[in-house]
């Protein structure tokens, strides 16, 4: 976990000392009510900058969002050889379908799934698809594979918060959920014309 624990001033739309006091107590509760178990340590209970900023009733103001997004953008690791989509869509499919990994019942922090289907439609033939995120059916077929689109998609997969600080999507690359190789496989699943996503 490469999380930054920035102490950013909060813009939670609260007023008065009692609200702040309540917030302090909530933060303490989010520590005290938990215990470390295996790979799920108590460090997970501390919020980093975007987590903190995006836990309010309303998102932060535009300027704060912009700043947060810029900081997240700087964390994205782009493929050194420019190979964005050269993965194996079949591997990508497995990663997209697997919701496993990083819980306290997982023994190691690697070999995780991407859990894409939990929130997104991808293969039009798949019925059991989530709807929290937008549908990605026909992703490459509909959007083409211009450098702009491909780069955006890689970045979004690596660190979704670079594009929307309060996105519901996990930061797959930055958060150590998926490896660069795994992300390339998911890219292939989205862009490969032979992938079920584009049928």
């Amino acid at each position: 976990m490469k999380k930054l624990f920035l102490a950013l001033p909060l813009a939670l739309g609260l007023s008065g000392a009692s609200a702040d006091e309540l917030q302090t107590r909530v933060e303490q509760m989010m520590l005290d009510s938990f215990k470390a178990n295996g790979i799920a340590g108590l460090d997970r209970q501390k919020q980093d900058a975007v987590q903190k900023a995006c836990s309010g009733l309303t998102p932060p103001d535009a300027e704060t969002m912009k700043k947060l997004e810029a900081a997240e953008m700087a964390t994205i690791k782009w493929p050194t050889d420019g190979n964005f989509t050269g993965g194996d869509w079949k591997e990508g499919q497995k990663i997209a379908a697997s919701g496993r990994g990083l819980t306290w019942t997982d023994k190691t922090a690697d070999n995780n799934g991407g859990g894409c289907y939990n929130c997104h439609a991808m293969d039009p033939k798949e019925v059991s698809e989530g709807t929290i995120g937008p549908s990605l059916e026909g992703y490459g077929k509909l959007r083409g594979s211009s450098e702009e689109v491909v780069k955006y998609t890689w970045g979004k997969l690596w660190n979704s918060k670079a594009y929307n600080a309060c996105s519901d999507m996990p930061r797959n690359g930055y958060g150590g959920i998926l490896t660069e190789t795994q992300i390339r496989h998911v890219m292939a699943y989205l862009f490969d014309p032979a992938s079920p996503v584009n049928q």
Partner: protein
Amino acid sequence: MRRQLLFTALGAAIALTSPLAGAAGDELNFDAYREMLADGNPAELLEMEGEELWRTARGPKNATLEQCDLGRGPGVVEGAAAQLPRYFADTDKVQDLESRLMHCMEAQQGIPSAEIINGQFLKGERGKLAALVAYVVTHSKGKPIAIDLSHPRVKEMYDMGERAFRYRTGAMDFACSSCHSQDGKRIRATQLPNITKPEGAAEGWSSWPAYRVSNSQFWTMQHRLWDCFRQQRTAEPVFASDVTIALSVFMAGKGNGAEARWPGVKR
């Protein structure tokens, strides 16, 4: 809407719902399935066990739980679960059904709470507590959920729960609100209640505890919350800890007035 507005121009152009969206699986209708399962809920098997446990003298003190006060007086089970969590003067705590039963097991039977707190779901005394839950909640079936939010300590827990609900943390940045703050959303084929609204909060609160068809297990609300946190990739919540009580008060309180349907049958 919020998320869409916040996309960068490029993001919005690319990532918004594609024209194909909704073609497949947007409306999964499980009504017929659920209706056919409503009668003959296997949770009834656990309820029988719980009723037996309630009346059986057990523990170092060799006592039954028949004098346990769940908030409506010693031994009153009828309608008790619908009014929990509530504030109890004898413990000076806001307690949900499970923490209250745990208290009774220690106070009356001498079964140490630590054994339950440090135990595992479905096993040992924590497993027995779940059977007791099945018994007690069945006696609130059809009753309106009635949480006393006028009590300052309960209201305080509600406010803490509301914050905890939106508290993003862990390896995937999730909060409860990541999945439970919009209408009509799903994880895979599982429909998610919008807990920020009274109907959704009532839906969530009144359908657990439940028999889970996917693993043939009876899960209490503590168990449900514990596994939500596991899937959120947080550290492990302690059994009956403040965060579990706070979230319960938030959900139950927001769902006030709705009919309890316990025990449920869930995926």
